[in-house]
């Protein structure tokens, strides 16, 4: 899915070309999937975006989505990761706390502990029940590096946030929110969940379905309607762009990290020099402290980027994969119908039965397409909102960063102009 970015600036052929693709290492071999501190207080609280985790209580009576129920009545948090060590394995559980005013729930507050496997199960169930709805993505199983770093603090924190976002998105989805499996996930005490998981289609029937799916996949879909062709085209291109944006943003984080590391020395070096001097000590000291302050501001900016922008982009990369899966499932239903129609055309016996089955499949396809169409629109809106607000917030962070640095340097200049008896020159044209 990666596209090699050719070297050369988008805006002309100056010597200031973009870094060539090799330099960007856009081939997926990034060793720098760094995630920074868990200081959630620095995150932008963008109330419109569901990707920003907030406490359930603060969400009550907040913004509603256009096609959502009038008031949010289900609030979920994921926190308190805990490591469990057994003789067989080590794993992490998270506290999943729910607050709700819905009647169908036995109580208004629930607290359970869930592990990643449980989330996986839930997602699988939702996809099965609603094959053409856009189920939110889960964070990956493990960082694709070869070394499984499941218990690294920052990895756990990233995952925790992504899991929280996942549940909130499900809760906000007009259909998925009423899923029975979802309710069980949120409310069943820990022992009960495993019992519940064991229900559902048996192993043999699952295998049967997989075999049929494989056969159909080979056959392919004949006449995909144009609207879904367009959708599919969009999904492919979109996934690719998200992948690139994700990589570019990660690269920016890496470069900024290295910049901060070098910059940390600049202030102290000026301070060291100040110790050698008499008349110059004041000015040098001033410059040194400005540099220190700007360095701190740069670190804050970096943290913001890592904590607010990267997770959103990454989620949408995963959404790309989800959407591809949704398209596949839709196509699968259509392929099923087509193969039955074919059978009907060529078979002479069992025509009654076949016609019935075709009818059912036609309905099924009709439902699936309708569901997808509606959810697609919803997803598009939400995507637009999430991404534009994430980028806008990022831009705002940058503006504030430069404003802070500007203030620092301007106040330094003000002190100098007293001593210097000369008007500080106006900013350069």
């Amino acid at each position, binding site marked *: 899915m990666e596209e090699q970015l050719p070297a050369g600036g*988008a805006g002309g052929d100056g010597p200031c070309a973009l870094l060539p693709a090799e330099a960007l290492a856009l081939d997926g071999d990034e060793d720098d999937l760094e995630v920074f501190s868990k200081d959630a207080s620095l995150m932008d609280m963008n109330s419109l975006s569901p990707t920003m985790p907030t406490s359930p209580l603060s969400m009550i009576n907040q913004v509603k989505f256009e096609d959502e129920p009038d008031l949010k009545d289900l609030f979920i948090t994921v926190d308190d990761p805990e490591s469990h060590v057994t003789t067989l394995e080590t794993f992490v559980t998270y506290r999943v706390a729910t607050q709700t005013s819905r009647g169908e729930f036995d109580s208004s507050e629930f607290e359970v502990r869930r592990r990643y496997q449980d989330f996986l199960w839930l997602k699988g169930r939702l996809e099965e029940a609603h094959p053409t709805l856009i189920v939110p993505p889960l964070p990956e199983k493990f960082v694709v590096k070869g070394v499984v770093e499941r218990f690294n603090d920052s990895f756990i924190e990233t995952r925790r946030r992504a899991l929280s976002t996942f549940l909130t998105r499900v809760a906000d989805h007009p259909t998925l929110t009423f899923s029975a499996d979802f309710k069980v996930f949120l409310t069943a005490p820990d022992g009960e969940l495993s019992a519940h998981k064991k229900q559902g289609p048996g192993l043999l029937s699952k295998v049967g379905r997989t075999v049929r799916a494989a056969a159909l996949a080979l056959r392919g879909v004949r006449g995909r309607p144009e609207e879904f062709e367009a959708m599919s085209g969009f999904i492919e291109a979109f996934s690719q762009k998200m992948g690139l944006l994700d990589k570019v943003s990660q690269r920016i984080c890496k470069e900024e990290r290295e910049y901060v590391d070098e910059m940390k020395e600049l202030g102290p070096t000026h301070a060291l020099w100040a110790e050698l001097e008499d008349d110059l000590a004041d000015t040098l000291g001033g410059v040194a402290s400005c540099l220190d302050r700007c360095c701190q501001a740069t670190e804050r900016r970096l943290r913001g980027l890592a904590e607010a922008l990267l997770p959103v982009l990454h989620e949408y990369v995963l959404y790309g994969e989800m959407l591809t899966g949704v398209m596949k499932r839709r196509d699968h239903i259509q392929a099923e119908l087509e193969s039955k129609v074919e059978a009907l055309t060529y078979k002479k016996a069992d025509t009654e039965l076949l016609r019935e089955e075709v009818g059912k499949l036609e309905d099924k396809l009709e439902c699936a397409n309708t569901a997808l169409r509606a959810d697609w629109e919803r997803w598009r809106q939400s995507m637009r909102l999430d991404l534009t607000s994430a980028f806008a917030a990022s831009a*705002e962070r*940058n503006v504030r960063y430069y404003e802070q640095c500007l203030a620092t340097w301007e106040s330094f200049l003000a002190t100098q102009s007293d001593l210097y008896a000369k008007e500080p020159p106006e900013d350069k044209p």
Partner: protein
Amino acid sequence: MEQAAPDLERPLQPAPLEPLGHPDAGPEAAVGEEAEGAPDEEGPGDRTMTENNFCLKKIEISVSEAEKRTGRNAMNMQETYTAYLVETRSVEHIDGPSVLTDSLWRRYSEFELLRNYLLVYYPHIVVPPLPEKRAEFVWHKLSADNMDPDFVERRRIGLENFLLRVASHPILCRDKIFYLFLTQEGNWKEIVNETGFQLKADSRLKALNATFRVKNPDKRFTELKHYSDELQSVISHLLRVRARVADRLYGVYKVHGNYGRVFSEWSAIEKEMGDGLQSAGHHMDVYASSIDDILEDEEHYADQLKEYLFYAEALRAVCRKHELMQYDLEMAAQDLASKKQQCEELATGTVRTFSLKGMTTKLFGQETPEQRESRIKVLEEQISEGEQQLKAKNLEGREFVKNAWADIERFKEQKNRDLKEALISYAVMQISMCKKGIQVWTNAKECFSKM
């Protein structure tokens, strides 16, 4: 041992030097009773620019062009070098027109020759430094190649700066060789070499690490030498750190250019977001390309620091010269004292110091009274000579300290002024960079907010 302390009652004198070998040696070469640093000293006669009065208000010097040349070097091999056009203009009145009076081409090695000459003939002056010979402290985008046009350009500016500094120095500006450097293209090298300055150069000055045990140096010079070492160290470190920071900052800005490209591609598949993404992409490109000007300006700050890095060396050289003079003085005094003692021993017959003659006399018999007399006489002559030399050296030493310290004070003020200005202009640069950043990101934010 006498402390070589400045003697305020003596009339100020420039360091005693041999007059230059050139037949047209002007008034500055003579050792006169002129007050040091009298820039208003006119030459004989009229008010127009005299041959040797090159203070900044009277003339303008510029190194205006650089040209690649090929020629044959000393070993008759083809070489490529850069020649610089040195133009001199005289300014009759303030705000009046400047008239081009001289224009000639010089290469870097000739600048070096000029400077080496000045170092020998004015050891008590902190001689302005030349721009670096080879590019150092470069970050990845800058080339370390001497023929690179950016390097050549910065060197051109550095060479101009060097000439302006010399021309504005109250003593150096009156030097004949400097004048000829600006006015006589051909044969200049021969003239300089004819002065024989290389022979006069104290080779010990080059041996920077050799220590001479000096018993009573002027403490101020010792401290100053220590300061110049520290200054060199701290500025080099600063330049290195700065280069690395510049490198990193370049990377940060340039990667944002990739946002530009991806936003642009993404806009092609979107309907409502299309225009917004295009604009946002454009702003990212603007941001990415803004770093080039920013870093170019910062290069200027680095060059100002470099000048003082090299100035520190010149400062050190003056301290070193004092050390050597003091050392010579102490050696001469020691030598004199030992001769006096020898003489005394011979006269009184007591042997306190070891001498070969003494030993052999002991072993092989006493010398005759006549022999002893003649030896005493020789020694007494040597002692008298030695006393005169010591007096002269002492004088020389005190003069040196006085004149050198005066120039050092001048230099200190210049340094504080220049560096303060450089630091302030660095702050101004940062402010400009911040303002650009605010503008770009505000625009980008608007694009996203509107989508």
